């Protein structure tokens, strides 16, 4: 009934929309990245590879790339480990379990800007509750300047992000857990496997696909992180928490350098693309092997 290439027609509307909202802006971004463009002052010079060459010697870009990678690796690792733990707890049949599930999801339901503002007050060096609690319990003697300390600032941001996104990981892993048939638990119990062995040899392999997919979701999100950093530190102190997205935002919208700003954004895009491609490729290989 259908000709061989009939299906291509079906794809057109979707492709057209995609081209409109994704490919066109992307291509325009790439084009812009070869220009020095500051429309405010009517500067539009074609500068070829100048922007890219400058990018590689741009210390601020290197700093923000490093910050972004650091943030991504630590926060995603913590979120996945904690998320799996929370998901397993969610599956235990204890009274009040349902309510617990709803409450666990709360941080994920709050808009990031709002929760980041909340964390900003928690971390406040003067009357933030974190310092008060730590000092009341005698763990600290002097208040800590969480968001202004060169190392603690990034750690504080990571904690705020882990708090917010662990529920997301937990939810998806929980869904994965529900697909494991009860017989498997029972038979492994009969075989005499303890809790730890059961987790390691039965549960973990079965939810591995979900974990891997959650990880890539989180990884791509974390590489473009903006809101939580923007609210908590704005990139400070001295850019030690500035991420790629924040740098691109400042270039594009605060100083209106469309050319170089696009170079940074496009580079961010390519970095995310390369990292996720490697990851997805590994995922495919693994699944084919498993089958």
């Amino acid at each position, binding site marked *: *009934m259908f000709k061989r290439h009939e299906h291509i*027609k079906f794809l*057109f*509307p979707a492709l057209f929309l995609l081209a409109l909202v994704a490919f066109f802006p992307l291509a325009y971004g790439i084009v812009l990245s070869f220009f020095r463009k*500051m*429309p*405010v*002052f*009517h*500067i539009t010079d074609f500068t070829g590879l100048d922007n890219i060459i400058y990018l590689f010697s741009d210390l*601020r870009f290197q700093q923000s790339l490093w910050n972004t990678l650091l943030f991504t690796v630590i926060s995603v690792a913590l979120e996945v480990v904690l998320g799996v733990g929370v998901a397993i707890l969610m599956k235990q049949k204890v009274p009040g379990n349902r309510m617990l599930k709803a409450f666990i999801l709360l941080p994920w339901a709050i808009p990031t800007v709002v929760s980041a503002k909340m964390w900003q007050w928690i971390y*406040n*060096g*003067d*009357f933030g509750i974190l310092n008060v609690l730590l000092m009341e319990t005698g763990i600290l003697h002097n*208040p800590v*300047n969480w*968001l*202004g*300390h*060169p190392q603690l600032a990034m750690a504080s941001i990571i904690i705020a992000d882990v708090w917010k996104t662990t529920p997301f990981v937990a939810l998806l892993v929980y869904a994965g857990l529900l697909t494991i048939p009860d017989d498997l638990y029972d038979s492994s119990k009969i075989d005499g496997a303890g809790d730890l062995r059961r987790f390691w040899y039965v549960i973990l392999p079965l939810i591995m696909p979900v974990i891997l997919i959650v990880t890539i979701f989180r990884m791509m999100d974390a590489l473009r992180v903006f809101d939580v950093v923007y609210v908590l*530190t*704005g*990139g*400070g*102190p*001295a*850019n*030690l928490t500035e991420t790629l997205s924040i740098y691109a935002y*400042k270039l594009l*919208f*605060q*100083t*209106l*350098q469309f050319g170089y700003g696009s170079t940074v954004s496009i580079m961010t895009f390519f970095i995310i693309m390369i990292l996720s491609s490697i990851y997805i490729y590994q995922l495919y290989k693994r699944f084919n092997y498993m089958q």
Partner: protein
Amino acid sequence: MYMNRILKYSAFIFWVGVGCLFWWNCAKDDDRKGSRTTVDDETIVFKHFKLANAAEQFDKAIKQFEELHPGVRVIEEVLPSNTNMQHQYYATSLQAGSDEFDVFLIDVIWTPEFSLAGWLEDVSDLVPLEERDAFLQAPIQANTYQGKLYAVPWYVDGGILFYRKDLLQKYNFEPPATFKELTRQAQFILKKEKRDDLYGFLWQGKQYEGLICAANEIIAGFGGDILDAENRLHLTDQKSLQALRWMRDTIHKYKISPDWVTTADEEVTRLSFMNGDCLFLRNWPYCWSFFQRNDSPVKGKVGVALMPTVAGEKGASTLGGWQMAINHYSAKKELARKFVTFMTSAETQLQFALTVGTKPSRKKVYQNARLQEQQPFIVQLYDVLRATRPRPMTPFYPQMSQVLQVEFSAAISKIRPVKQAMAMAEQQIYHILELEERVKQ
């Protein structure tokens, strides 16, 4: 075969639909433009940010203007008060040549940038040279670019030093005139008061525009400068280095400022001072009305002074405040000029000063008897406001500010030695200023 035909029809319908959408959209745009230029000839749009407690006074002033000019209508459009968001809004819409507003309020640091971009109407004739003396000098200077006045100062602001009158009196101190005195008094009182939660001196050290404001006036107090009129940088001069070292030392050496000032903005420091936990505070005059509220723990215990200097220097506080500008793309510039003249007149400024508490840009208003009676605090600020200093005046200030914020933050948080941070700042800023020369040509 049947299936095939359905497909063809659906595709046809889809494309017709897309076409309709486009047509409808374009038609809608045309409508809007048409109505603006033909029907509302006597209407101007005035855009300003949400100024606290000012909504009623804006209404009143606009009504007065409309009564003076029968048939004229002024439409107010209000933007959020976040300065960065306003800048982004104006930059993107003026970039696109928008004529949707005629008169708008701009921050004092935008004037050179917007003028060079060609977005502001030259308003030199609204304040003729011989009349410029009627205004405070710094805001006029900040709104003049390449010899022309591009915006009329509407209200001004300047950084000041708040201090606890009661505590200073208790130990027989006069408000500090020099940085040394401030340090000594703070150290002395902190030692005597024996309160863990009392801070000596709070200022804004977060990586943001407020840090530049604080640094700008402390540098001025040490007799230094950031950028001079010939576009030369003075960040690595001894005096500027001393100023930044002093800021850093308040935290690490003299221990009169807590280490969290490196993340503090205006509101955080105001709250701490208002709770009674602080001796000296560098902030803007808006704090005053908060401190005098009935539920304020420091009500009646706060004094105001000029920011300290080193002995022998005059010093200056950082100029802030907002200006009335006219959109270059506006189709009703004559009416817009009348409106700006009206809004910046002594009478309107007086009304805003009385009801909203804005600081007038015209000197004469400070001598008004009603203002002296009802807002003595504003009158008291006259000396501070007369001696303000603008932040570096260049069209590339937004880019320059990005560099300064980072390097100042690095210097005060001990991430880099002060000298190295300032040298890095100079190198980056010279790179930016090269562009200015190119654009001017």
